[in-house]
């Protein structure tokens, strides 16, 4: 069996499994998994910039929120239907990430982290400042009637699951295709040794800019779908916490692996879910598990799997 076949079977297998699961899962886990798939999409986007290009952004909540508010505000105030509203969310994410990339990519390392963090905070404060339209921290609910996409009611759990599955599947396959294409391999090389890539004749700035726009647009897609599927947009999604989450998920699942973002999001979600069932000090349990994981699997769960068993994992 060739490497490409194995990769397609594994990643296709996961999508088939997720598709089938929805017929057997109890309602509670069914709802969870829909949410996890949307959040994992966010992590997939983050992973393209952090895991593959080696740029640690602390400002991805800005892109997630750009998608969410691009979608939400046009539905709420301009009376858009979901399809064009989602498109506005995507375009907003692409524009915001492109603009931030032009500024932030003039820096590197810690300075890049700080610049992205600061702009994301500025974005968060902007949402609060325009509370008249955004309703600030309180946020606003997107009514059921406003969530009907091409005649499909996205507030219905089954439809919601399918939409989340479709979004995640498309973004996972984009990510898989990207990292195996020459462009993605150049990104990996930039992560490993940027100066050498430049001296091989590549415009590394243009590559990093493109990576950041792809990453930001996928994050925005996740934000737009999150708002639409769960019927709510609020400023907390633009807070620094939501910039840290995808970093954590990707680190846990395995930075620079295609499946890592999903594995990490799933793991983290259920770690908190299960430990909060045991004690109110659930963050303590989660913390201990995270420390252990960092000690014993520093490359994340999927990264460890690649190191020990499946060296061909993309």
């Amino acid at each position, binding site marked *: 069996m060739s490497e490409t076949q194995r990769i397609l079977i594994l990643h296709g297998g996961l999508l088939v499994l997720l598709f089938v699961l929805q017929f057997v899962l109890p309602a509670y886990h069914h709802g969870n998994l829909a949410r996890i798939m949307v959040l994992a999409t966010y992590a997939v986007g983050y992973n393209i910039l952090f895991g593959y290009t080696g740029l640690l952004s602390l400002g991805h909540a800005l892109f997630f929120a750009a998608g969410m508010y691009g979608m939400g505000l046009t539905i709420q105030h301009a009376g858009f239907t979901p399809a064009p509203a989602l498109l506005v969310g995507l375009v907003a994410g692409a524009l915001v990430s492109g603009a931030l990339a032009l500024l932030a990519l003039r820096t590197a390392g810690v300075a890049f982290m700080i610049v992205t963090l600061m702009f994301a905070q500025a974005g968060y404060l902007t949402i609060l400042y325009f509370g008249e339209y955004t309703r600030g921290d309180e946020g606003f609910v997107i009514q059921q009637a406003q969530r009907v996409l091409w005649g499909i009611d996205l507030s219905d759990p089954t439809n919601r699951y399918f939409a989340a599955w479709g979004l995640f599947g498309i973004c996972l396959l984009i990510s898989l295709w990207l990292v195996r294409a*020459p462009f993605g*391999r150049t990104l990996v090389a930039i992560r*490993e*040794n940027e100066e*050498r890539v430049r*001296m*091989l*004749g590549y*415009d590394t700035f243009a590559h990093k800019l493109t990576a950041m726009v792809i990453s930001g647009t996928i994050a925005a897609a996740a934000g737009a779908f999150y708002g639409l599927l769960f019927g709510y947009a609020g400023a907390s999604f633009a807070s620094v916490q939501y910039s840290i989450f995808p970093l954590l998920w990707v680190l846990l699942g395995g930075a620079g692996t295609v499946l890592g973002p999903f594995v990490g999001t799933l793991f983290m979600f259920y770690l908190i879910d299960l430990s909060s069932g045991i004690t109110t000090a659930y963050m303590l349990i989660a913390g201990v598990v995270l420390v252990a994981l960092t000690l014993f699997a520093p490359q994340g769960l999927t990264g460890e799997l690649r190191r020990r068993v499946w060296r061909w994992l993309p």
Partner: protein
Amino acid sequence: MTLLSTRGLSKSFGGLHAVTNVDFDLPKGEIRALIGPNGAGKTTLVGMICGRIAPTSGTVSFDGVDITALPAHKRIMLGMAYTFQITSVFPRLPVAENVALAARRRLHGQEVEAAVSEALDRVGLTEAPDEEAGNLSYGHQRLLEIAMGLAQRPRLLILDEPTQGLSEGEIDGFKALIRDLAGETTILLIEHNMKVVMETADRVTVLNFGEVLAEGTPQEIHENDAVQAAYLGTG
């Protein structure tokens, strides 16, 4: 026909004049060695030629076009290749992928694989193309650098101390490779090993304190008193 020329090229770092007023011409097809004591400004000069370092003043032209304002990656695309003095490969990527990155800048699909195995063949690194480059011995990493340069099929190949750290046998292989490349491409070779210079270069340029001290055939340079005093040592 001149492939590369510099006029009045200078670089100062603060008060230190690393390179001063260098006029340098390299005809097409020649193998030129650039020698000089440590700190003579060789790497700085070459850095200005390939765009890694911005000059303080002066111009660089390549194939008749002024490229002084071009960023490094655009100069590379015009047909320059630069191999680093301090080995700079992608240690966590496979050997073949290192070379493929160099080849993909001009080739696509199947052609890349062919160019990769050809380049690895030429430097004699055929054993483990799937090995991570970081696991190679130092000498083999030097050879990998050269293979990456070859895969770019450059019109001007700049080699910055390529034989540093190579074994005697590997140096013999390198000299054979350079002779093999003669006529195919123009080579600018920064080199400390005088045996390599004498046996491979058509002409030699000597830098001392950032200025061109002498230029001529290896024989002329060997017999030049000023060069003897500055660099080769008497006797």
